[in-house]
């Protein structure tokens, strides 16, 4: 079962190298998703299946989608059908597809073998222990996280808001008259 770990690690390193060498942000994000999926498989083999699920949901899901939304907002004006067609070339998606196929093959192998995905030496730390620890000794950290998330929401709203152009009413009347 150690082979599962090594293949996932190789996929993670390869896709991360592809992320930092791309020129197109969307291509980089495709490889970034593959990298997060590979790291999730590594978590699985290390005996942290709940963290693997969280990695996929939050990193590969929420954060990447957020970045994609912002990219779409930034060049909304200059998009056209021709470039959309250009984006769907096979050379764009074949790399991430191959790397994800490797991960899928690993998943199929694990399910078909019917064994626990961890390496034999590793004892899984299940989500129940994590929850007991999170809301026991680490309760202060959870509260601090809540405060930080609130600050993050307020900060993102404040920064992302389009500032209305404030014109004095004298100038407004003059511009209306002119």
């Amino acid at each position, binding site marked *: 079962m150690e082979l599962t770990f090594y293949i996932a690690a190789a996929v993670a390193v390869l896709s991360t190298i592809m992320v930092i060498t791309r020129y197109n942000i969307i291509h980089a994000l495709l490889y*970034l998703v593959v990298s997060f999926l590979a790291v999730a498989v590594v978590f699985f083999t290390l005996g*942290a299946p709940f963290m693997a699920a969280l990695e996929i949901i939050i990193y590969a899901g929420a954060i990447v989608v957020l970045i994609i939304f912002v990219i779409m907002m930034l060049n909304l004006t200059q998009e056209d059908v021709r470039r959309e067609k250009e984006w769907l070339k096979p050379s764009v998606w074949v790399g991430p597809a191959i790397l994800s196929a490797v991960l899928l093959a690993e998943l199929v192998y694990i399910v078909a073998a019917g064994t626990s995905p961890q390496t034999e030496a590793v004892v899984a*730390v299940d989500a129940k222990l994590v929850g*007991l620890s999170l809301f026991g000794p680490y309760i202060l950290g959870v509260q601090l996280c809540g405060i930080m998330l609130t600050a993050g929401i307020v900060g993102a709203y404040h920064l992302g808001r389009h500032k209305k152009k404030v014109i004095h009413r004298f100038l407004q009347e003059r511009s209306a008259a002119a």
Partner: protein
Amino acid sequence: MSGAPMEAALLLAGVLFILGLISVLIRRNIIFMLISVEIMLNAAGLAFIVAGSRWVQPDGQVMFIFILTMAAAEVSVGLALILQIYHQLKTLDSDAASFMKG
């Protein structure tokens, strides 16, 4: 306990962190720099998971949840900052934002 996967996993965390660091240093596109920071945070979380798995304690996974929360808050504020920079400077070049003005 066989040490091989643990050492290899720590090595993987180190390699991913270095890759993210290299990308922060060589890139000038500000969105790429944000992505690289995400890679580095992910590598740090991986190191915590490895440590928690090595000593069979939940603390490593708790720390990973905190890192995850921090990354989510950081990326939302960072993207809002990127939107502001783009609206003010009309570019994503990080060197264009090297001055400080009110």
